[in-house]
């Protein structure tokens, strides 16, 4: 192991011989070979890791000042905003980074969909990512309950009630989740405990996600395996500097919201203390749940609605086996490319429907969009795998990247670069 580690430091050598932690860091973050043609869409994985760390650090600081009790939670958050030194900054970072974490992860996933990163041999890598998404959603939902505003309370009431749709045991499960007969102090307490726990579970799954990633290395925009060393570059300094630049751009966009519109992505009703006797006119989840909320509401049957909502994420687990095309990248899949963008637009549409009242045009569009969401996975992808004629693949990563002409493969790949 340690033969790759170049150091003259005797202490490091001594430690590394007994605990090869420096060798491991060297192999995973410095010498780690990555395809040389990764584009900026590959920045979003490291950005997601960055967001996770920011969430955990700010969250731990907030937990030192927060009181998880129905009588004090709302005011303890306001004390953080008003009286704790820098409290407003920490709290606004935590609040807005939650949204940005989802933006980053959604982009990361759409990148995976576009370039076929879920295909063999990276199926488990992809599935671990879906597990991370589910954990993030649970964590975000419980975090939104903690300030104990009107949306916290009513959002918690609506979402926990979804479990009552489970036949026979539904009611009992909901009472068990609440720790009582309504959303109340026991609910708030357990949500706080779990909201503190789950991020560390996410860290654990992220480690396994990276482990699976490093087994075969990153996919790349061409979707072909790297052919030996000429197609690869060491992670450091190439991707460390590129990822650092990505973090800079990300922080610029984030700062725009953080400092100049920190409540833009939130809901005004959550600045009203929770009141079980007054229902808000519109109970709307956070924006990142809207597409899933739209799927839930577009199905008139409660149980089927809940099933469809969970299935919309569950279906991602079997995606590697639904998409039968041997070609990964949409660059070489002329028909899939169009369906990808259609699917993307469909997700945006679902998000819009999710914040509208479930009646009239939004309801109809929501039903169509929900149907399309599942048709895309269950019908379009399996059929495309058989019917689509992919464009010829380049022979290697180096050829289309390096040469301006010449080889057959490069000539074939060149016009597609524009896409």
């Amino acid at each position, binding site marked *: 192991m340690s033969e790759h580690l170049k150091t003259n430091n005797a202490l490091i050598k001594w430690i590394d011989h007994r605990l090869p932690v420096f060798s491991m860091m060297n192999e995973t973050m410095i010498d780690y070979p990555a395809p*040389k043609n990764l584009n900026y869409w590959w920045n979003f994985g490291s950005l997601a890791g960055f967001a996770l760390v920011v969430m955990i650090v700010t969250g731990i600081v907030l937990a030192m000042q927060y009181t998880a009790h129905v009588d004090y939670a709302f*005011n303890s958050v*306001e004390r953080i*905003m*008003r009286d704790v030194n820098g409290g*407003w*900054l920490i709290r*606004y970072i935590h609040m807005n980074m939650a949204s940005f974490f989802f933006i980053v992860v959604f982009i990361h996933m759409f990148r995976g969909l576009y370039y076929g990163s879920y295909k063999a041999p990276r199926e488990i890598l992809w599935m671990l990512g879906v597990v991370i998404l589910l954990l993030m959603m649970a964590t975000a939902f419980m975090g939104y309950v903690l300030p104990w505003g009107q949306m916290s309370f*009513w959002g918690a*009431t*609506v*979402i926990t*009630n*979804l479990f*009552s*749709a489970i036949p026979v045991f539904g*009611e009992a499960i*909901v*009472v068990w989740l609440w720790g009582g*007969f*309504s959303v109340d102090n026991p609910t708030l307490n357990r949500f706080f405990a779990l909201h503190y726990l789950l991020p560390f579970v996410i860290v654990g799954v992220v480690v396994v996600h990276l482990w699976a990633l490093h087994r075969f290395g990153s996919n790349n925009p061409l979707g072909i395996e790297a052919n030996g060393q000429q197609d690869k*570059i060491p992670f450091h*300094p*190439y991707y460390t*500097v*590129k990822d*650092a*630049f990505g973090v*800079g*751009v990300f*922080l*610029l966009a984030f*700062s*725009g919201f*953080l*400092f*100049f519109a*920190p*409540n833009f992505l939130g809901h*005004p*009703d959550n*600045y*009203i203390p929770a009141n079980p006797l007054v*229902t808000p*006119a*519109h*109970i*709307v989840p956070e924006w990142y749940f809207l597409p899933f909320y739209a799927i*839930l*509401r577009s199905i008139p049957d*409660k149980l089927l*609605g809940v099933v469809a909502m969970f299935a919309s994420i569950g279906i991602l687990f079997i995606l590697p086996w639904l998409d039968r095309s041997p070609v990964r990248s949409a660059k070489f899949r002329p028909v899939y490319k169009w369906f990808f963008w259609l699917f993307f637009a469909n997700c945006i549409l679902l998000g819009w429907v999710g914040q*509208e*009242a*479930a*009646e009239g045009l939004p309801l109809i569009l929501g039903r169509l969009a929900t149907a399309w969401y599942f048709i895309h996975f269950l019908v379009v992808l399996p059929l495309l795998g058989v019917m689509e004629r992919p464009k010829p693949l380049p022979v290697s990563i180096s050829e289309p*990247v390096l040469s301006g002409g010449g080889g057959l493969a490069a000539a074939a790949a060149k016009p597609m670069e524009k896409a």
Partner: protein
Amino acid sequence: MKKFVLTAAAAAVTLGLGIGAASAAEALKAPSKTWSFSGVFGTYDQAQLQRGYQVYKQVCSSCHGMDLIAFRNLADLGYNEDELKAIAAEYEVTDGPDEFGDMFDRPARLSDYFPSPFANAQAAAAANGGAAPPDLSLVAKARVGGPDYLYALLTGYEDDVSEEVLQQIFETETHKREVQYAAAMEAYEVRLAKYQEKVKTDPTAKEPAMPEDPGPVESVEDLGLPDTASFNAYFPGYGIAMAPPLSEDIVEYADGTPATLSNLSADVSAFMMWAAEPTMDQRKQMGIKVILFLLVFTGILYAAKRKCWADVH
């Protein structure tokens, strides 16, 4: 208990799945106004906040509490410590228990929070026709439109809004009623046809009642607001329990600013915005510095990236 859980579950799911029934209570969208604190470089105007505090103290505070604001916080408005102590000392707060176990009243100190106008929520509700006036500490962040909405609301009573605004509301409401009436008539026709069929065999069948044409909305009276409510163009449903609180010269400004309705409303809305977001000035100033730093830092990283990658492409 089980029944309660079932009902709660049913209610919540109906809420979750059937949102939108509440959209009947719409109101006009508050027009956006230019504030001293608007935009990236906007900051609070201390003189305006002081005037707004005066309006709150002399008018609003008789019904609305501001539980999250302490007298020490008013330093943000530009008062010095002696002035703050004098402001606080005008209030009596209950403290204790003392060494004999008795509660006692004393003048407020800087660390005390604004005293509530009512002993508790029940007392507040009882004194205000059943609905407790909301606390104003966070109201500027707890309403869609924020300070724009508050200003629009305070200047949105019947005598103060323009004829244009009234006409706009009347037209929307008339249209809404026409749509509802048409739907009701359609349903009536169906029921009538059924009745005419049924009455042939069963003479005791009841003839359905014809829906009444609500007619157009041509005046505030036509809106049919409850007697206890005042018309307000910007309040959801147009009927607000709060009677017009402000009027010209209700307050005599210490700095000589004319106490027009517009000034009173703008000043107190700005004050409420400050109360909801006292760290806004600090936040924006920090934001400008952070963004300038990030622009340079990211620029350097980009240059480093370009240089580092020069040999790859």
